[in-house]
């Protein structure tokens, strides 16, 4: 951004900057409307539909897609897969930004955002799954922050502080995986309390398991997707190791994703069997469920496998995009499309354009910060002072 353009003498008005700038302006206007007019002025939420896009996308999808951080750090530090080391920092950065933006988005969604610390400071509702989600997200955001600090510390040249944080790596990684297991699954468990509102094909006692397993899938696919994008837009920032490991990461993570998708497919089928919900498959919702299960679980499982066998990195990259889309669809189904399925069409929810606007705004803010950091800090290359220090 600014520094690059100044250095290379280019204009500030790059297509990215223009579009991002317009979105940010729109977002700021919508923010004013939201906090002066209330939820009624900006959303289509109703008494029947208390949760909309800001929970379905910003919270559920946001947290699921930010899972690359724990998946990659577990692979590298706990499972000893050191050849994926260059995927680590981009994944932790996206994870950290993802969670930070989730928390930002929640300020738009809840009625009294300044009270967001109340569940921890004032009164603890420990019987609530949402308490668990809140506690784990808050703690995990802190963990991701600490995990990320070596990057700015290297950038700023604080060697001793950086080396101190690096010593905590193993502890932080284990803590991060524990917290991620808990809140990824709890996001699914949120809906356990509403069996009478969520369609039986999506409601299952295994919802927490589904959300956790699919978060691994989302994390693996997002790392592949991100490295594709970085390879395209930040190639000049990548050092030889990162360039060389790019395809290794796609092949390795694609293989893992294929396996986890296979497991996910099996537990989903077990869920239908356990609930004996086969007859719903003949209905319209059943057809949509099959689209999700066959089109966005079974198909990418197969495509990943083919891609890995043929060492077809292009196929793996496109499959990653498709898989991420599948996780988005799943979260939308659980929180919006199959939720309140018993209500007449007139009472169903469809997001207001301003809700979509805020979500786009928040994603854009994430992209801008990501770009800012990647252009300055050692994310896609190793800092010369710490080469092979890990």
């Amino acid at each position, binding site marked *: 951004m600014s520094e690059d353009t100044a250095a290379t003498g280019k204009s500030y008005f790059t297509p990215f900057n223009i579009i991002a700038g317009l979105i940010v302006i729109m977002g700021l206007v919508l923010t004013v409307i939201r906090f002066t007019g209330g939820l009624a002025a900006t959303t289509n939420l109703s*008494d029947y539909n208390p949760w909309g896009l800001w929970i379905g996308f910003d919270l559920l999808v946001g947290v699921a897609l930010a899972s690359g951080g724990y998946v990659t750090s577990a692979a590298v530090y706990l499972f000893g897969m050191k050849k994926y080391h260059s995927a680590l920092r981009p994944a932790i950065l996206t994870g950290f930004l993802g969670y930070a933006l989730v928390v930002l988005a929640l300020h738009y969604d809840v009625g009294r955002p300044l009270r967001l610390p109340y569940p921890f400071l004032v009164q603890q509702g420990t019987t609530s799954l949402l308490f668990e989600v809140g506690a784990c997200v808050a703690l995990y955001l802190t963990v991701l922050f600490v995990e990320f600090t070596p990057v700015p510390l290297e950038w700023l040249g604080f060697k001793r502080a950086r080396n101190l944080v690096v010593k905590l790596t193993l502890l932080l990684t284990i803590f991060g995986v524990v917290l991620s297991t808990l809140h990824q699954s709890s996001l699914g468990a949120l809906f356990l309390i509403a069996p009478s509102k969520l369609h039986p094909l999506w409601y299952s006692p295994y919802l927490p398991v589904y959300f956790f397993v699919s978060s691994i899938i989302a994390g693996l696919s997002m790392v592949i997707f991100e490295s594709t994008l970085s390879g395209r837009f930040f190639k000049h920032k990548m050092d030889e190791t990162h360039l060389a490991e790019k395809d290794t990461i796609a092949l390795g993570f694609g293989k893992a994703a294929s396996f986890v998708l296979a497991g996910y497919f099996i537990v989903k089928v077990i869920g239908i069997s356990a609930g004996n919900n086969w007859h719903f498959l003949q209905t319209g919702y059943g057809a949509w469920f099959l689209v999700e299960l066959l089109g966005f679980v079974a198909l990418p499982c197969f495509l990943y496998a083919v891609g890995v066998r043929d060492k077809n990195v292009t196929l793996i990259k496109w499959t990653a995009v498709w898989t991420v889309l599948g996780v988005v669809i799943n979260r939308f189904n659980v929180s919006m499309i199959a939720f309140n399925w018993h209500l007449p069409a007139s009472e169903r929810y469809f997001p207001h354009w301003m809700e979509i606007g805020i979500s786009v705004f928040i994603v854009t803010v994430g992209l801008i910060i990501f770009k800012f950091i990647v252009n300055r800090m050692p994310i896609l290359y190793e800092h010369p002072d710490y080469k092979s220090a890990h």
Partner: protein
Amino acid sequence: MSISRRKFLGWLAAAGLSTSVTRTARAATTQHFTGYPDSVGVLFDNTRCIGCRKCEAGCNKVNELAAPDQPFDDLAVLDNQRRTSARSYTVVNRYDQVNYLKGPLYRKIQCNHCLEPACASACFVRAFAKSKIGAVTYDETVCVGCRYCMIACPFEIPTYEYDNAITPRVMKCTLCYPRISKGLLPGCVESCPTEALTYAKREDLLQIARERIRRFPQRYVDHIYGEHEMGGTSWLYLSAVPFRQIGMREDLGVTPAPELTAGALSGVPIVVGMWPVLLTGIYAISKRKEKLASEEKELAVTTAVEQAEAAAEAKLAEALAQADEEKKKAIDIEVQKALEEAARPETEEAEKSETEEDS
């Protein structure tokens, strides 16, 4: 047996005073919680309801809610199906064509005050509480406004002040908790002109309801809605027609809401306890594998070096031996040569002297 409200006013005092009993209602215990002893409730009998909306008016008045768009005596409102809203804790709906002989039937909707409320279990700041007297109360001073209570409530009761930008609240019937604590009747019960609403201890209400069904089996369906639904509710319902025909869900089941999430919650400490063990184990295994691999590598290298050295030594020794032999040979040859050389002059000299002697 018809019991007047007045009589229950007396009972109420007893109910209100007997809340000192301490018993905790907790999710996922082996005990089946059937409500606080002597807690109160309301029985709604739709064979007595005339759809006058007086209860709506009474509720609006005692709870000081915003005035409705249409006045409460405008019964045209009943032409549409309504639900609770931020401006009305209770609404009455009319159901035509469910009971041809006796005209329309009505159903009053408000918070059912579950014995184990979904909203209270779902709230992450404990803004909701089931009081000992039976009311499910709401504390707006801690509410964050996440609206998970509205997701959780199987009866779709809580509502939200979406148009309030700064201090929005969840709005729902409180069973007139402030009034009943003082020994007064809930606003709706007080204003009902037909005794379609009966306020009493829940245990007594169940007796009354059973008695009505027993005495007039042709008038009622044999079911007290709320006795077991979602683990039981403080509000109970009698109806002339099956409850689904008056918009009440019969597929909610009898499991109290907290039990639905108890399993997931019980998994939390297990993950906290066991995941670090498992993950450290995986780390240790991968670390050990790495160590073994590097040891093996080292061993392979040393062996290779040793072998190479041994081979080189052998070769050297051989070469040396050969060199020795060759040297020996060379020496032998030299010695031989020297000897031969030494011998030659003698013979030459001898020959010479011989020739000299000859000449």
